[in-house]
């Protein structure tokens, strides 16, 4: 393998492959190292973090360099792996590297209390997972893509089931594996359609192939299903709220922040690069699916009481917004509005990058909480800001960013997307013109609900009084953890403050997919994607003004008046005997949303007896789709396998007869 790397100067693709090999080597080196868990924490994960930084660097280079390719001498005979690194892959590599760096730094401190044996295995799967994701981005033929895809799925399955002694986690892992494979089958079929019987499974051949519109649509639908299953698009989302909370927090951060994006990458790759035609209704379908997913995700996020499950549902919402942007891009592209497609695609990529950073940050933040308290249920948390100020303030940045508040990064991508919606009067189809305002309203509603969810998440976990006396013992996260969170939080702030630079940096990707770039109409200070008359946003000025007014006010109040403070017990309208149980619980905070959107939920409640001395309330709002869609499917599958089980007799002669009959039938058919 080393022999294929030319001496100097190697292409970005070879650097990337080299780093993949480095990660693989790192993963396998963890096995002999399991005698010394300190080495695992202090050596393997930091080295992996450096690898991530390298991947991000290679991606940065790949964004500006022309596409480079490589053929690896591995794989089946006559079926080598083709690799290619163009701007699209490079962008997602930057996303992966940037998020994985923070998470790996964090992980080097996070796993210190784990038993050495499982930790070594975890380090192996962790790095295999990272290597698999990069290979998915690099693959340039269907065979390599599917192999990398499976490596990614399997290694993440083992990561999800790290605590495999708990039955709930085993079943979550099984559900994840099942849906991942149903999706993979759809992808395999999609590639089959794309390849169209030429016998050549390289992406180059697919790019050149002329696919008739009908078959193109079939391929697109299969890809949407397959990638949608991975990304958590409704109704294929059910695995996500099960699997993400089950995994250790750094793994959840990677799965939610990065792995879901590989599905978005695949969607973009197939529909804009591999397929030579796009049909208008694809965009409408994707837009509708995305909007439904966004709304569904955020509604369920608002009624969760497990903090990681809440974040998982919020990931579904963000994927919905990304897929809606994808649909709008397709609509613009098929309508011949290249510049508008470029704007929407920029919003899509920006949001994907943002989500990797803030969701990664929030997930590892919950990891710190979990370490400090051992509790995932928000009903037993509270008041942690006083015991873990670092974690709390850094998580607050992530929460404000994901709620789409200026001047952080989540706002920028939502701003761009809303601008794109406002430009739809240019569309030639009148029907779409009328439907799209409703779509814009849905995006705005989802964004506003996200703020609700984040106030609930942050307020219940970090603010208020501790709901459990044990929380008084909570300790702050260690330095590696803080550094990891700091990196991701800095990403959220910088991506929010310098949008004009980021947009300029995204230009090659947008150029590659839509053929046009987004021209920023103003200086680096001002974001004005269409024209500065039309719309502009300058987060740096925004931030500076708020900061100036803030400081002036503080100064003025101190100067003119005084800064005297007295401490006392909370007033609370004079009600005596306040205690921590009188605060809103997580269920209580979500109650209005549950009441409004009860149609989508199956609510289970246990209310205590009014005279009980130790009243306990339990409430759960379950996903109705699970009962309406998945349970019937499971029942049918169960019935079918019961029928098939009749064939089983235990006598070997019978089995031989089955084989023999099959052989005869096949011979008759292929006569």
């Amino acid at each position, binding site marked *: 393998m080393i022999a294929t790397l030319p001496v100097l100067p190697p292409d970005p693709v070879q650097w990337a492959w080299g780093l993949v090999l480095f990660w693989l080597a790192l993963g396998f080196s963890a096995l002999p190292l399991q005698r010394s868990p300190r080495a695992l924490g202090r050596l393997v994960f930091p080295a992996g973090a450096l690898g991530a930084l390298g991947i991000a660097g290679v991606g940065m280079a790949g964004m500006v360099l022309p596409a480079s390719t490589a053929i690896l001498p591995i794989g089946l005979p006559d079926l080598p792996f083709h690799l290619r690194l163009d701007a699209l892959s490079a962008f997602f590599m930057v996303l992966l590297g940037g998020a994985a760096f923070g998470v790996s730094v964090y992980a080097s401190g996070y796993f210190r209390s784990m038993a050495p044996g499982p930790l070594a295995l975890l380090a192996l799967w962790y790095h295999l997972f990272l290597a698999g994701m990069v290979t998915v981005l690099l693959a340039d033929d269907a065979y390599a893509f599917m192999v990398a895809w499976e490596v990614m799925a399997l290694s993440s399955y083992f990561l999800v089931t790290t605590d495999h002694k708990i039955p709930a986690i085993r079943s979550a892992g099984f559900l994840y594996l099942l849906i991942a494979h149903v999706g993979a089958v759809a992808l395999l079929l999609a590639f089959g359609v794309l390849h169209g019987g030429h016998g050549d499974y390289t992406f180059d051949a697919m790019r050149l192939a002329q696919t008739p519109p009908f078959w193109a649509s079939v391929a697109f639908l299969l890809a949407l299903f397959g990638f949608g299953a991975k990304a958590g698009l409704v109704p294929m989302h059910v695995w996500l709220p099960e699997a993400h909370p089950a995994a250790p927090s750094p793994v959840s951060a990677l799965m939610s922040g990065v792995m879901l994006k590989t599905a978005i990458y695949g969607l973009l790759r197939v529909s804009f690069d591999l397929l030579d035609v796009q049909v208008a209704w694809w965009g409408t379908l994707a837009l509708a699916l995305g909007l439904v997913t966004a709304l569904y995700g955020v509604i369920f996020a608002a009624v969760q009481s497990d903090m990681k499950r809440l974040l998982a549902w919020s990931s579904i919402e963000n994927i919905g917004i990304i897929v809606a942007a994808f649909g709008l891009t397709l609509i613009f592209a098929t309508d011949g509005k290249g510049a508008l497609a470029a704007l929407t695609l920029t919003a899509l990529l920006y949001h994907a990058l943002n989500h990797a950073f803030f969701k990664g940050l929030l997930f590892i933040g919950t990891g710190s909480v979990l370490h400090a308290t051992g509790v995932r249920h928000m009903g037993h948390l509270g008041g942690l*800001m006083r015991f873990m100020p670092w974690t709390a303030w850094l998580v607050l940045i992530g929460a404000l960013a994901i709620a789409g508040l200026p001047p952080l990064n989540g706002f920028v991508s939502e701003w761009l997307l809303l601008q794109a919606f*406002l430009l739809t009067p240019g569309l030639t189809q009148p029907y779409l013109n*009328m439907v799209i305002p409703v779509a814009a*309203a849905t995006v705005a509603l989802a964004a506003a609900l996200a703020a609700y969810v984040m*106030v609930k998440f942050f307020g219940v976990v970090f603010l208020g009084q501790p709901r459990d006396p044990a929380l008084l013992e909570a300790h702050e996260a260690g330095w590696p953890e803080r550094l990891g969170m700091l990196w991701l939080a800095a990403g959220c702030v910088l991506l929010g403050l310098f949008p004009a630079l980021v947009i300029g940096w995204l230009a090659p990707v947008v150029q590659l997919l839509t053929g046009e770039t987004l021209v920023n109409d103003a200086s680096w200070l001002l974001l004005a994607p269409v024209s500065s008359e039309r719309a502009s946003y300058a987060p740096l000025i*925004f931030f500076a003004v708020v900061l100036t007014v803030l400081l002036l006010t503080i100064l003025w109040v101190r100067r003119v008046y005084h800064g005297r*403070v007295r*401490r*006392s017990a909370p007033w609370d309208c004079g009600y005596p005997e306040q205690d921590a149980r009188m605060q809103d619980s997580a269920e209580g*905070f979500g109650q209005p949303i549950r009441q409004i959107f009860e149609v989508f939920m199956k609510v289970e409640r246990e209310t205590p007896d009014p005279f009980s001395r130790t009243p306990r309330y339990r409430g759960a709002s379950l996903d109705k789709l699970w009962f309406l869609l998945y349970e019937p499917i499971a029942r049918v599958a169960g019935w079918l396998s019961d029928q098939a089980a009749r064939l089983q007799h235990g006598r070997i002669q019978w089995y031989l007869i089955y084989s023999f009959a099959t052989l005869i039938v096949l011979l008759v058919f292929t006569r």
Partner: protein
Amino acid sequence: MQAGILLQLAQTLLAILLAPLLMGWVNQCRAWLQGRSAPPITQPYRTLRKLFHKDAVIAHTASPLFRFAPYMIFACMALAAGIVPTLANDLPFSPAADVIALVGIFALARVFLALAAMDIGTSFGTLGARREMLVSFLAEPALLMVFFTASLISQSTELPVIVDTLAHQEFAIYPSLAFAAVAFWMISVAENARIPVDNPATHLELTMIHEAMILEYSARHLALIEWAVALKLFTYSALGIALFLPWGIAGQGELGMLPLALVAMAGKLLLGGAVLAFLETVSAKVRLFRAPEFLGTAFLLAVLGMLIHFLLEV
């Protein structure tokens, strides 16, 4: 440019200084309409002065976020007041934040207020935060849709450009703005904690939203929040005027128009305050469970406004 920056600063300062006066005027009108003897119009200033002089009392359980939030909220509202054209259209700051960012500023202030309310960990604080977020998750997108209707008409999300299109171009009637105006009124009422969604005058646990959130604040922190509330009312009134009654706002480089603009603005605000007080007096507070319905209606009306724009005006 320099004149523009001076004008910008003057306008922002004017908004900050005059906001309590508008509050005083609304309270006065309301008292008259209800047959009570009215407090003087300068009452809000006196209250602020009294509060600033007092010692702040803060709960033992408060975190730094609690003390930081009032300043943050005040700064957000000051920025918002600076963006909305009140006297002149020539605002050098306004490219920094268009209408979408304006909605973002309001949201930022609200999230900080809700978080601060949850910080002490009292039953009323969390209750207020929950209700506030309930009101806002419908009011915020509705406000955005109102702005979108205006943006679609003027092809821009910049407030000065919108005002310029509506006030200084050839006169035209936009039916979509009728829907937007009704929705905007409903949203303003909800966002400024007025009847029928909230009642700023009571501390009744069944109904209060905004007051429940600021129960734990005292002295200078409370003063800043009260001032920010007044500023919010002022900004919303100025927004309503800029979107639906923009005539009289001085255009780009029309410095001579400023005295006239000042008079027009004062007149419109006096009228607007009186109308608000009147509508508050004649309507009854709705039950809290009806508030989502009220706001849902506002949201759908705003969406309908956008739709009407596509149907009748393109």
